[in-house]
């Protein structure tokens, strides 16, 4: 019998990253799996290529001296998980490599779901900027991030392509959306169903959970988090 995400204990950053990777590695080809995180406390994650010292300094500047930032498998910037709705989507990503179109599709899904729930957002389309993203995810809106009418970024995310599958990890800020975390999570699920033409699975196989416990060891390690 499959477990659902509601049966999964609240996890720290290493546990969440490991579970996403376990789903990415083990989900069957063609699967569409949505996971909305339950956090066990404040957490900070940072992009695969980012230097650890930047994430460490950002945590310290925020007063999060006891929070150990965890390197993600996905790209993107530093994210503080303190009241956001964090979610991941594992999906088929076979033919094209083009991340822009994938990112747009997923954020359009969230846009549609949020609109249905009464929260107005739009896909950001700024003029071309110099190469590179801001170190902190929410420091500025990148193309296809979800923004409010005044340009405030409310959804940012990042991707990893492995074999024929993709992992998206996103952070939705609720402060100005007027939605509860549960309503926002349901809006994302509803939007994904509309955008992808089928409801995403929210069930987690027991073997994925078991694999995640092993993978989490890496995400807690200095070798992984401080590799650069």
């Amino acid at each position, binding site marked *: 019998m499959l477990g659902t995400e509601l049966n999964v204990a609240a996890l720290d950053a290493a546990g969440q990253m490991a579970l996403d990777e376990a789903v990415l590695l083990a989900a069957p080809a063609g699967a569409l799996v949505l996971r909305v995180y339950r956090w066990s406390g404040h957490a900070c994650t940072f*992009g*695969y*290529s980012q230097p650890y010292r930047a994430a460490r300094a950002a945590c310290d500047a925020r007063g999060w001296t006891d929070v150990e930032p965890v390197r993600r*498998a*996905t*790209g*993107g910037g530093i994210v503080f998980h303190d009241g956001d709705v964090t979610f991941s989507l594992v999906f*088929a*990503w*076979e*033919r*094209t*490599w*083009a*991340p*822009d*179109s*994938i*990112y747009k599709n997923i954020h359009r899904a969230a846009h549609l779901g949020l609109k249905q729930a009464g929260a107005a957002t739009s896909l950001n389309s700024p003029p071309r900027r110099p*190469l*590179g*993203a801001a170190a902190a995810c929410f420091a500025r809106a*990148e193309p296809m991030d979800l923004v409010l009418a005044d340009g405030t970024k409310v959804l940012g*995310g*990042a*991707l*990893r*392509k*492995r*074999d024929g599958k993709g992992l998206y990890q996103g952070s939705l800020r609720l402060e100005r959306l007027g939605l509860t975390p549960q309503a926002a999570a349901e809006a994302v699920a509803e939007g994904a169903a509309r955008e992808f033409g089928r409801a995403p699975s929210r069930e987690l196989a027991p073997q994925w959970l078991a694999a995640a416990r092993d993978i989490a060891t890496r995400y807690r390690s200095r070798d992984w988090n401080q590799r650069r």
Partner: protein
Amino acid sequence: MLDPKSLKYQKSHEWFSADGTVGISDHAQKEITDVVFVEPPKVGRHVKRGEACCVVESVKAAFDIYAPVSGEIVAANAEAGKNPALVNQDPYGKGWLFKIKASAPDDAAALMSASDYETFIASEAAHGSH
């Protein structure tokens, strides 16, 4: 710069030259758009054909790069690590990623020719965006 027509390719869009050099195709670099990070494999590592051994990242997405053949990594492009834009600017030249000393000569024979790769790309495009 190598002649793309002289290279072998795999479906995950890596090219492989007769001297064991590996990079990603022009088609792939255009799809990724701006490459901002390259993590080549460590020299001396032994890899199996199809094993993820290198990472290329654009602004929002990280991509695994797969070994086209089994063997030992004998060189990694430190310049591409310092200047990832080389992957976009010169994918068949200065933007190479690593070199493999193949341990199984038959592996290369299983890769696609340039013309087969062109056909493959066209069929992918015909099947849609994902």
